[in-house]
């Protein structure tokens, strides 16, 4: 399994993701510069957190024009795995690879804290190691993570089961108090209809070692790595 981590000017979570991939999981890793025009044979592309191109104009708005993003779009169209975390989720929405948009937190604050996420899909490559409705403890760190989509898009997402993670309390109950940013329907992460493009605001790469206060994020990285193994074997 070869993971590619995209680095835009202003990306800041690239090394954190890279560390989990090669030091914790022992998987193959390549960093992809925003000007790269090939994906170096990677099987899963991660768009990490940060402020790509300074988030000028809107979060993710300029990053989508990076040469590497053209390749990422084609890769996603072919069914390749694309995983946007935080700023990467914002980039995927701006690029039209996922529906909706991330707007300013309802509180206007930059929220940097632990959240509970209830997992609503376990049939995906990204969540195959999670139990049904498992609650993951994963930190967020964002000022613009409030998920918005028009009512028609939102109901389509719900009907097709494209909501993967929702902010919940410790028992997996999706309650308003557990929502850190005003996201509609407590949405923390969604997947495209085909199931190969995931976007999420919380940072699994920051909770993949016990020293960091939790290892729930590692389940997602491990899911991707082991799903690919199954494909290779079968």
């Amino acid at each position, binding site marked *: 399994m070869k993971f590619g981590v995209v680095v835009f000017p202003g990306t800041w979570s690239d090394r954190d993701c890279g560390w989990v991939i090669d030091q914790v999981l022992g998987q193959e890793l390549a960093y992809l510069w925003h000007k790269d025009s090939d994906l170096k044979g990677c099987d899963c592309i991660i768009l990490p957190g940060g402020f790509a191109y300074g988030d000028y*104009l*809107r979060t993710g*708005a300029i990053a989508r024009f990076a040469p590497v993003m053209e390749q990422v779009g084609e890769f996603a169209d072919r069914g390749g795995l694309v995983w946007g975390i935080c700023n990467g989720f914002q980039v995927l*929405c*701006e690029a039209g690879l996922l*529906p*909706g*948009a991330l*707007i*300013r*937190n*309802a*509180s*206007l604050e930059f929220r940097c804290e632990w959240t509970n996420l209830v997992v609503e899909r376990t049939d995906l490559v990204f969540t195959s190691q999670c139990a049904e409705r498992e609650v993951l403890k994963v930190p967020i760190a964002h000022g613009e993570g*409030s998920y*918005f*989509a*028009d009512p028609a898009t939102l109901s389509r997402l719900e009907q097709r089961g494209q909501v993967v993670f929702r902010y919940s309390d410790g028992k997996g109950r999706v309650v308003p108090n557990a929502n850190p940013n*005003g996201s509609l329907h407590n949405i923390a992460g969604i997947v495209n209809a085909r199931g190969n493009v995931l976007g999420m605001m919380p940072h699994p790469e920051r909770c993949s070692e016990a020293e960091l206060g939790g290892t729930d994020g590692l389940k997602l990285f491990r899911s991707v790595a082991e799903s690919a193994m199954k494909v290779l074997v079968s």
Partner: protein
Amino acid sequence: MIARVIVTPKPVVNDPQGLTVKQGLASLGFREVSDVRIGKYIEVNLDSSSEHEARERVEAMCRQLLANHVIEDFRFDIEPERKRR
């Protein structure tokens, strides 16, 4: 020519900045304020042979980049460039 583009959050989109500024105005005594929405102002200088052409081009710019149609509306005026002295 100069295009003066105004981008605003759609009415259905929550605008916490606007709400906060509204509260600030109320605390200053401007109690007649019923709503505040905060958007962006963008000036684009462009070479176009006609206002019609400029209008079409700026419309395309707004749709493709300057505004995000999911959350924002836009409007703009076109003015012929001021003569340089």
